[in-house]
C-alpha cells in the first residue's frame, strides 16, 4: 500500500501530526494510539457539512502552509500532553478538495483516565482551528466560493 500520509513527522519525543491530501483513515490512526497504560481513548472527527451561514455548500477546499502547520501542530500536541498528562496525542488534517461527509480533521488522545482524554482532545481541536496556517474555501451551490473567516474580515474595513 502506498504511504497514506506523505507529509508527517515521527521523531523521538515529538508527537505525530499529518497534513496531507490523502484521505484520513480514523480506524488506522486509532490503532497507533494503543497503549497498555491508557485506560481511555477519545477522538474527534471534523466532517464536511452541506451548509454554512445559510448557504448550501457543495464542497470544501483546504490549503495549508505545511512547514509551519506541522511545527505549530506539534507544539499544540505537546502542550496538550503536558497540561492533561495524556500518553499520546495525534492529529491529521486534510488539504485539497473535500466532498460532503469527508473527514477534514481527526484528533486522537490516549490517557490514563477519561477526563484527561476528553479535555486534551477538546484543547487540541480548539487550538488547531485558530493556530494552524490552514485555510478553507467553501464552494456554494450557486457557483460562488468564499474563504471562511476572510471575506467578512475584508468587508469590514
Amino acid at each position, binding site marked *: 500500500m502506498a504511504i497514506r500520509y506523505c507529509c508527517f513527522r515521527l521523531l523521538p519525543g515529538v508527537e505525530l501530526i499529518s497534513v496531507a491530501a490523502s484521505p484520513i483513515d480514523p480506524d488506522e490512526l486509532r490503532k497507533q494510539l494503543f497503549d497498555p497504560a491508557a485506560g481511555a481513548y477519545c477522538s474527534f472527527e*471534523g466532517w464536511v457539512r452541506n451548509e454554512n451561514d445559510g448557504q448550501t455548500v457543495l464542497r470544501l477546499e*483546504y*490549503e*495549508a*502552509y505545511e*512547514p*509551519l*502547520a506541522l511545527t*505549530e501542530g506539534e507544539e499544540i500536541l505537546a502542550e496538550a500532553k503536558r497540561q492533561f498528562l495524556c500518553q499520546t496525542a495525534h492529529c491529521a*488534517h486534510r488539504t485539497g478538495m473535500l466532498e460532503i461527509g469527508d473527514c*477534514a*480533521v481527526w484528533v486522537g488522545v490516549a490517557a490514563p483516565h477519561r477526563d484527561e482524554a476528553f479535555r486534551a482532545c477538546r484543547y487540541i*481541536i480548539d487550538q*488547531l*482551528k*485558530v*493556530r*494552524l*496556517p*490552514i*485555510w*478553507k*474555501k467553501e464552494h456554494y451551490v450557486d457557483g460562488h466560493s468564499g*474563504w*471562511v*473567516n*476572510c*471575506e467578512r*474580515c*475584508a468587508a*469590514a*474595513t
Partner: protein
Amino acid sequence: MKSIKVCYFAMFREHAGVNEETLTIDATTAADVFRATRERHGSAEPTGHCKVAINDVMADWDSPVSDGDTVLLFPPVAGG
C-alpha cells in the same frame, strides 16, 4: 531599501495574483511589508486577524525585517 521576498496564501494569493514576489521596499517591520503589499495590490485587509511569519518562524507585526528576509502573509486561518 531592502529586498524582501513576500509569500501569499489563500485569499491574499488570489488578490495578489502570484504565490510570491520579491519587493524592494523601505520597511522596518512586518507591518510595513504588509502595508506595502496592500498598496501594491489595492487590497485593504486589516492586520487584526491576520498572522505573519518571517523565515518560517511565526512573528509579530512589529517584528523587524532584514534585507533578504522571506515574509509569509497569512489571512485569517480556518482549519478544522
